[in-house]
């Protein structure tokens, strides 16, 4: 999955909140932000610095752009080769596999070849031949990876499969940051992983939650949802600025159409990050089923204006948006 124009997807109005110190840091080709409510600004800053150092460390482990990262070593592995991974990458792969299964393969980290087939170097859609698509599909799917049950390693079954944690790594890093902030007793905080994923570590005293806004990415003035995030995470995925999401489930599927953006609420940022991508391509019924099957999960879908569904442009929501005060 490619880098998203993430700052378009979820808005946070926390800047107006008194006592919430704001810190930011560039990493993983985006900007991480922290809002921390604490009396001691220097202490909050030191905690934020430790959190950002953790994100940088994870980037070295998981970036496919670094030749010696765990992911690059997986991507360079020959058929049948077992790769020793760091504990973090290992854990992230396990979660990615879980999300692949839960979403019926709509969320898939093995999509590197597929994206290379459908998009040119400038990330514009190209028209691949049927043979190219077939070849890319032969290199796509989590069945090409065998994650060890006991050791911290994974076996690549097919040479050339290209893994990309872009759709889950930020959520994963957000969870690690939350863990660290809890160790620092800085629970009254909010983690923004490029604002495509927002994770509530805890709500500051006297607040009903962190105020969130969901906007139409094509019409920034149109805010169609406001709610307070009290726990868990919210993630957004979208096709704004001409970006493309490729459905990995079948050779016939190709680029996703019909939806402009999808949001997901989940108990943790990993599930939220991964499911928001899946919600861009799952059917209405599948999304509804997913939300029923997974506690604490909800979805909002913004159909594409002028798409085949244009007669049905209303924002759709699934699951319980508890206290969300959803306005469409």
């Amino acid at each position, binding site marked *: 999955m490619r880098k998203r124009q993430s700052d378009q997807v979820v808005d946070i109005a926390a800047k107006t909140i008194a006592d919430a110190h704001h810190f930011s*840091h560039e990493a993983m080709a985006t900007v991480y932000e922290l809002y921390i409510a604490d009396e001691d600004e*220097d*202490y909050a*800053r*030191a*905690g934020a*610095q*430790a959190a950002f*150092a953790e994100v940088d460390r994870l980037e070295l482990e998981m970036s496919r*752009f*670094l*030749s*010696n990262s*765990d992911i*690059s*070593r997986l991507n*360079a592995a020959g058929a049948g080769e077992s790769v*020793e*991974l*760091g*504990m973090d990458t290992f854990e992230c792969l396990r979660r990615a596999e879980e999300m692949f299964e839960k979403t019926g393969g709509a969320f898939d980290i093995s999509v590197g070849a597929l994206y290379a087939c459908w998009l040119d170097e400038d990330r514009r859609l190209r028209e691949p031949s049927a043979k190219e698509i077939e070849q890319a599909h032969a290199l796509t799917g989590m069945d090409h990876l065998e994650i060890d049950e*006991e*050791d*911290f*390693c994974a076996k690549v079954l097919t040479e050339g499969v290209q893994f990309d944690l872009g759709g889950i790594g930020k959520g994963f890093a957000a969870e690690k940051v939350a863990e660290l902030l809890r*160790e*620092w*007793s800085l629970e009254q905080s909010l983690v923004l992983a490029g604002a495509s994923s927002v994770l509530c570590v805890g709500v500051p005293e006297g607040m009903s939650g962190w105020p969130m806004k969901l906007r139409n990415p094509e019409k920034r003035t149109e805010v169609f949802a406001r709610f307070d995030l009290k726990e868990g995470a919210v993630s957004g995925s979208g096709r704004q600025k001409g970006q493309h999401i490729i459905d990995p489930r079948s050779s016939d599927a190709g680029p996703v159409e019909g939806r402009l953006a999808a949001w997901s609420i989940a108990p943790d940022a990993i599930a939220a990050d991964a499911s928001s991508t899946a919600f861009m391509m799952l059917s209405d019924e599948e999304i509804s089923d997913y939300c029923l099957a997974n506690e604490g999960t909800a979805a909002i879908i913004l159909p594409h204006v002028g798409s085949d569904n244009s007669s049905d442009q209303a924002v759709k929501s699934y699951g319980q948006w508890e206290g969300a005060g959803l306005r469409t």
Partner: protein
Amino acid sequence: MSNQIDRRNFISSSAAAGAGLVLANSALGQAGNKKDINIALIGAGTQGQVLMNAILKLGRNSGIKFRAVCDIWEKGNLRRVSRILNAYKRYGHKGTAYVDYQELLEKEKDLDAVLIATPDFWHAEHTIACFEKGLHVYCEKEMSNSLEAAKDMVLAGRKAGKLLQIGHQRRSNPRYIYCKDKVLNEANLLNRITNISGQWHRSRAACVDLGWPKGTDIPAATLKKYGFDDMSQFRNWRWYKGLGGGPIVDLGSHQIDVYSWFLGNALPSSVMASGGVDYWKDHEWYDNAIAIFEFPTEKGLVRASYETLTTNSSNGYYELFMGDEGTLLISESAGRGEIYRESWVEETKWDPWVQKNYVTLEKASIEAEVKEGDDEVDVRESATPALYRMPIEMKVPYHQPHLVNFFESIRGNAKLNCPGEIGYETAVMVLKVNEAIAAGRKIELKPEDFKV
């Protein structure tokens, strides 16, 4: 230079002596080419954890087994690392936790080697104690904050007949080795190197003082016992005199080491430097430093500058070697490496090396533009030099090859890439920068200043 050759001979013979001892053990049935090596980590902070992770990624069949870890920060580093090691029980690792390194050395009877990643001012005591127990030592750079202590480390290793590897990990990085052996030495693409420059620029945000979670403080008595005034000084020891050496030592040391190494382990004849505590408050060591070295080499003098900043991250970190026919830019940072041919040098001169795949041509030179109607080329406009790349990637964690070199040297299968004698030379070059800044004058260096 004759003293260079002497030095090289000395180093290879001392490494051979180390290997010889391993072979002697082997004869007793205690060692062999694939012998398990039991190790402990003393100093489990950020750098200690980097070393540990690089070793864990060697996998369960590496034969390297962690037995124990030591750190005085019980509720921080020690707890974290001990937990990780215990999670690797199936790999044969064990994370028995110690606050007191002497207790670790007493109780852990089956150790072969120790990794030391404590603050610089502790390196000598820890290293020498390990040698006295008959253990091999991998010690992080800087060897020590004191040259006398660094010398003692080398002497103790010789006396014990054990190996001392210093953590200048670029010396084992395949990209660096490739550039030195293939690009500079064999193909000689730069021809005569006349100048070197290099830098490590770090942003202000990356240099703010480190904190620690509430409730994890080291008891005051323990801090005092180990030479720290308070918890903040423990976390930020690099900035304090008597404990660390500031950014020129933390960052510059790696790169100044490469200057010498790429020049065939040449040693500088002088250093001058400027620096100061110009920006950060409550820091004792210079927050920015600029140094100039003179390296006499067989081909002539090489003048080399180095700069480290803690307020601005412009252009990050790299080493730049400039010869009269070409330029090499190399950095440990992800894949950063460029080779340029001076535009007056004929392309055909480098073509054979492209055909042999020593380097790949990425972008041919762009000739200075001749405007229509002009009779001649404007000589003030220089042509864009041709860009070449080295066809080699770093595919394993940064510190892993250097650690493997250490372990394979213990097994008698390799020679140390950075033995204590080399580490000492680098320590002299780097610590003399701080001395030159304090003295406010150029410091002359003699070959014997680098000898242990």
